[in-house]
């Protein structure tokens, strides 16, 4: 039962990350492989506050979300200044730089060993220690975020984001503020990633750089691509499906030494196959 619960909690956290990636890549059309970096920053902020007993879970969580909003705006700003491919370089650079910081800044992040023993989340003075309680917390966060995403996408703002993707020039010519729309999308994406980071750190009670590296970013991209870009359904299907896949891999006899590589290999194959044969994913719109 605990196993099922942790699968659900993890998948729900990844739904938040998919929403974040989907907003940037699918909806705003900004290619990003640095969402794991933002996710990591959120996780490390919450971990640091809780481990040093500076703040409780809720304020730490809010600070992480706010920090990630600011960070994601800063990271996406170059995308608004430089054109498409230059931002690909920026995005890769940010991700590699973040991994370097997570790994080498030992005083703040524990370096490659990570930060073990993060206390469980507490709500209104009550610690949530059982997996069931944490699943409830994650579910609540996921439902709230999905509702937020859904509301945003059916609001005039959401329609404007779609329009920008279709024809940026036309939207600008219609007198809309394209820059502000993109920055707002980035801010929302940052908030989702930050919330996911906070939940992840307290759920696993352990963070280390390998959870926030380029492979993690690729995983998020795969989730969006497989589930389907630009829709809420896609962002929910993707994580649940892709986190179940490694379990299927364990049924096949694969030596443990290559299990991680086999998993990443599978994600790569999925990326190529979906781009070649079904770019809209399982339940998405044209990418």
């Amino acid at each position, binding site marked *: 039962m605990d196993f099922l619960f942790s699968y659900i909690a993890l998948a729900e956290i990844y739904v938040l990350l998919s929403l974040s990636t989907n907003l940037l890549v699918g909806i705003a059309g900004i290619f990003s492989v640095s969402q794991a970096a933002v996710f990591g920053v959120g996780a490390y902020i919450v971990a640091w506050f809780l481990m040093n007993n500076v703040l409780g879970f809720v304020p730490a969580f809010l600070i992480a979300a706010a920090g990630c909003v600011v960070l994601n705006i800063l990271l996406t700003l170059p995308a608004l200044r430089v054109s498409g491919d230059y931002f690909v370089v920026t995005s*890769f*650079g940010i991700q590699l730089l973040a991994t370097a910081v997570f790994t080498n800044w030992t005083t703040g992040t524990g370096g490659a060993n990570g930060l073990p023993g993060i206390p469980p989340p507490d709500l209104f003075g009550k610690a949530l220690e059982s997996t069931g309680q944490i699943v409830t917390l994650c579910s609540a966060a996921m439902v709230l975020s999905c509702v937020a995403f859904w509301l945003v996408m059916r609001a005039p703002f959401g329609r404007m984001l779609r329009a920008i993707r279709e024809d940026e020039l036309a939207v600008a010519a219609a007198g809309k503020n394209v820059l502000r729309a993109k920055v707002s999308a980035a801010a929302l994406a940052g908030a989702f990633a930050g919330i996911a980071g906070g939940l992840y750190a307290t759920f696993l009670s352990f963070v280390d750089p390998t959870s926030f590296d380029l492979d993690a970013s690729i995983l998020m991209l795969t989730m969006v691509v497989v589930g389907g870009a630009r829709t809420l359904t896609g962002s929910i299907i993707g994580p649940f499906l892709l986190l179940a896949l490694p379990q299927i891999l364990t049924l096949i006899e694969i030596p443990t030494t290559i299990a991680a590589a086999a998993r990443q290999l599978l994600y790569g194959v999925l990326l190529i196959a979906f781009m070649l044969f079904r770019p809209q994913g399982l339940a998405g719109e044209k990418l």
Partner: protein
Amino acid sequence: MLAVQLLVNGFVTGCALGVVAISFSLIYATTKIFHVAHAGIYTLAGYLAWTFVSHGVPDIAALLLAIALGALGGAAIQQFLYAPLERRKATHLVVLIASLGLLAVMQNIIAAVYSANILQFPVPWGSRMVAAGSIRLTWTQLLTAVLSLAAYAGTMWFAHRTILGKRIRAVASNPFLAEITRLQPQAVYIYVLAIASAIVCLPGVLVPLDLGLQPYGGITPLLTATIAMIAGGVGSISGAFALSVLIAELQNLSLLVIPGEWSIGITFFIFVIFMLFRPTGLFTKAR
């Protein structure tokens, strides 16, 4: 004296990086594809050469075999991935995601077959020292510098003096016009991928001779090379090569003040400076 040694090391690294940059630049300027999977070919070349050498193939033959296989691999990528995507009128984003997927596939096949640990080449001559005054170089470094400069000169000669080179430049400057004058851009793209992949195999084999092989080691050189390409001006072979040397020199000199694990930060800092002040690069001709 340390500074001079670092300058010399920087020059060697920069030459190898320059070859990565000119090969990427060839592909990017011609096909307009941000070919992330180039890092996969780079890594694969080293592992292929390692396999040949370990099975008793003479060193030079191993290098040539790796180059030939790399060229085949590049042509196959265009034929079986990029060309079908182009026929489906895939957007830029879709092609980029597919390329990223291919990179994940290549890296993880390598990791599964050879394990993720660092492999050293079994070539005793490679680490033998040559000393000139107080400057010490390994044979590998000497060979890297000489062959990289030769590759640069060869690429310049090829692009400007041969029929195929001129045809490639024609397609790069105006694919539509090239199509109606029967220069067959699709065929040219296959040649370009093959040639550029062959070129990148040279540093792909030579750099690991010194530093060892690592399945995920291709991204950082590729990222640095693309930064050099952008800073040098897209389409300028000499610009890409010169900026590669410059960036490697700055990275090496920065070792005097900052520990080596932060060098990605230096690279990225250079990129940001360029993006802010000269986003079109140093060596672009006025249009």
